[in-house]
């Protein structure tokens, strides 16, 4: 048992890329009891049910009380969770999931095929206002309960990403009885099968979770079985990063997320605080260049911009080694990620020649390039909600270095809605938009020309406005292909074309750093979307 525990943690840490072994190793036998306070820097969700809307803050907290049909291990393989096994039909259009028969929701409702059907229905019901889950189920035509333990998904076309989609917290299973309640009630206290139960939620302050003593259904890669160790979890929302870290220092809280680079560096010095780094899956953090309009409709200008931006120095100075530079469109945790450093060297000279070739020959008083009277300027709206300060500083440094080559980068920090508005109005030349989704299928969402067509809300995911039939072709086939190797090849071809087209300037993985008091042991993140799970965590006090 102990061996298993540490072993698994070791695996988890391999991924984490940062040892959680503090000075107070070796840790003793896990002890039950105690209250853990988690301080989240993400915005407080407006609804604790991740079906509604579906953003990362919801994923973070709901992972403590909701569980999905499947999960993913640190190697990226899909592993059983609430579903013990699954079998796709040969045409890939129907999937049968065999469910655990020993699981009940914390309100006593039995977890069965009917429950799954109800959940999928709930997700696809427009009045639920689901967005993430809704999109992920785009190809799911229908769900039926074959038996109490077998549920069948019928697809409109093969979907190689189905399992990855189902592994995400936004598609987690909730008690159908609870789902019948009004949305307000369900938002305030969603009912799942997880190791903890939502006890109360004081808006603007904290969510209180208590242990689910009847818990039986940890994912296959969990550190132990049976109920969680912690009695209680206080889930606080402290948006101000400085206050959050100070609170951790003062021992007011035990775990914080969205740790800023400088605080991570401080934590390295301190014995009392440990770090847990677990990059998010899906796309890397990158700057997308709007190839849909001038000046970036010209590949030479796109390359020139990328070559003129000194990203390496910016990242090293601002992230102080807490983030590694990425040369890929995908997160480094994606097995299928293709990385090509050569394309992204900082080379002002090359950039200059490229601009000359592209016709941006003259330059004006301020040293900016000009082409027939038009200054070479780049509109760059920045979402202050989605880009942490360090990242905004990276942009500022890119602005500064690109200036030397003659780019005028106009940074415009905006609140979320104005930012979306700017994108919807196609009022941008460069933009950075994180996108978290399990698996390489994220590429289809981000770079398939279909995604240029705005949703009713005006939002569209293909912000680089990549419109390349070949890429479309590759991505669509990949999404249909269930054979792993074939799929990987298709995706790597697609990535090559995207990278070589200089549509994106990769920066680093979506940062996902946690800091914890060193007496918090066994905390790990789910390899699905890298949200922490407190199931294995215990207090070594």
């Amino acid at each position: 048992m102990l061996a298993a525990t540490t072993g698994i943690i070791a695996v988890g840490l391999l991924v984490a890329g940062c040892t959680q072994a503090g000075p107070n190793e070796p840790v003793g036998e896990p002890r039950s009891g105690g209250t853990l306070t988690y301080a989240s820097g993400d915005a407080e969700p407006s609804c604790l049910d991740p079906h509604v809307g579906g953003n990362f803050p919801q994923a973070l907290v709901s992972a403590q009380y909701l569980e999905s049909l499947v999960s993913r291990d640190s190697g990226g393989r899909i592993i059983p969770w609430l579903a013990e096994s699954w079998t796709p039909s040969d045409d890939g259009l129907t999937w049968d999931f065999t469910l655990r028969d020993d699981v009940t929701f914390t309100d006593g409702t039995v977890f069965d095929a009917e429950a799954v059907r109800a959940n999928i229905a709930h997700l696809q019901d427009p009045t639920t206002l689901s967005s993430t889950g809704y999109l992920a189920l785009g190809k799911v035509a229908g769900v039926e309960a074959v038996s109490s333990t077998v549920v069948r998904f019928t697809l409109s076309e093969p979907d190689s990403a189905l399992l990855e989609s189902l592994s995400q917290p936004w598609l987690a299973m909730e008690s159908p009885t609870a789902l019948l309640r009004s949305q307000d009630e369900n938002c305030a206290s969603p009912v799942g099968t997880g190791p903890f139960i939502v006890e109360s939620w004081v808006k603007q302050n904290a969510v209180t979770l208590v242990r689910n003593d009847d818990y039986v259904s940890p994912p296959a890669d969990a550190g132990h079985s049976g109920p969680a160790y912690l009695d209680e979890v206080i889930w606080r929302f402290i948006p101000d990063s400085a206050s959050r870290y100070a609170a951790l220092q003062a021992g007011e809280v035990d775990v914080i997320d969205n740790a800023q680079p400088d605080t991570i560096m401080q934590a390295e010095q301190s014995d009392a605080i440990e770090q847990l780094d677990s990059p998010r899956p899906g796309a890397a953090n990158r700057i997308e260049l709007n190839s849909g309009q001038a000046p970036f409709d010209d590949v030479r200008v796109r390359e020139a911009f990328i070559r003129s931006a000194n990203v390496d120095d910016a990242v090293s100075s601002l992230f102080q080694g807490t983030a590694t530079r990425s040369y890929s469109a995908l997160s480094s945790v994606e097995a299928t990620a293709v990385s090509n450093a050569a394309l992204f060297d900082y080379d002002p000279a090359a950039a200059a020649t490229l601009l000359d070739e592209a016709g941006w020959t003259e330059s004006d008083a301020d040293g900016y390039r000009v082409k027939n009277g038009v200054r070479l300027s780049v509109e760059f709206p920045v979402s202050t909600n989605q880009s942490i300060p360090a990242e905004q500083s990276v942009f500022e440094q890119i602005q500064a270095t690109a200036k030397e080559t003659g780019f005028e980068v106009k940074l415009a920090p905006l609140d979320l809605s104005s930012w979306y508005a700017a994108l919807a109005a196609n009022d941008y030349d460069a933009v950075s938009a994180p996108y978290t989704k399990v698996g390489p299928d994220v590429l289809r969402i981000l770079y398939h020309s279909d995604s240029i067509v705005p949703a009713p809300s005006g939002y569209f995911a293909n912000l680089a406005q990549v419109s390349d039939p070949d890429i479309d072709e590759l991505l669509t086939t990949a999404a249909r292909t269930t054979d792993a190797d074939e799929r990987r090849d298709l995706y790597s071809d697609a990535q090559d074309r995207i990278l070589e087209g200089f549509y994106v300037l990769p920066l680093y993985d979506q940062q996902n750093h946690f800091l914890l008091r060193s007496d918090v042991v066994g905390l790990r993140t789910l390899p699905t979307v890298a949200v922490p799970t407190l199931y294995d965590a215990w207090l070594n006090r």
Partner: protein
Amino acid sequence: MSDLEVRARLATRADRLGQPRRLGVAESVAGMLALLLLVSALAPQLLAPGDPLGIDPLSAFEPPNLAHGFGTDESGRDIYTRVVHGTQSSLLIGAAATAIGLGLGIVLGTLAGMLGRVVDFTVNRFLEVLFAFPGLLLALLFIVIFGPGVATATIAVGLSTAPGYARIIRAQLISVRSTAFVEAATVLGRTRWQILRRHILPNTLAPLFVLATLGIGQAIVWAATLSYLGLGAEPPTAEWGAMLSAGRTYITSAWWMSFFPGLFIVLTAVTATVLGRGIDRRMRHL
């Protein structure tokens, strides 16, 4: 009552222990500070030749040292340079906001004070309503509508100070209108217009100078607050409030990033107050 009215009220209770004629130590210091601020606003290059936006990633987060008196920020920019260059935008915002507030205040106040009961009543009700949005609330409401940014923040601060100015000006007008010397002028057979021009307006507007001085201090603090809340000027603009909100992130590791801009805001506000009091004391003693 508004911030401004309170400040004004405090200022005009001229420091009883200070001799009116003699220039107090505090005032001479404040005077010099004001001079420095003006210089750094008009010709920052004289005090800080560097480039406030010039980055130097390799010397980021340096604590105050000989090379960088106030230390450096996350991109290795020199904080001293930025603070000095920030004076301009900060003072400008403060001045603009004050101008807006004062302008509106004068219009409203004069309307109320000069155009008889009905107007006075209406304007007063209107002001009462505005006062139900204490302090920043009016500004925040305005920002909700027109979105954040330097311009809106400036206007917002201006708007939320306007009622204060208006009420003071109105009161001043009314008190001057009923003074003995205005009556004396009537007795000397002066026309309304002459009296307005020679007595009422000068005696009403003179105190506004003090008000404006105090007001700028307050406006700067408020504008900085808005920037700090991320609703005003944005980084990397060298504006004190914006610098503070940038520094806030690193407060646990790099206190100097927020300390020095804040210090300058406080200094400016104090300077404004002391000068305002000084000017006021002189004005009422001759």
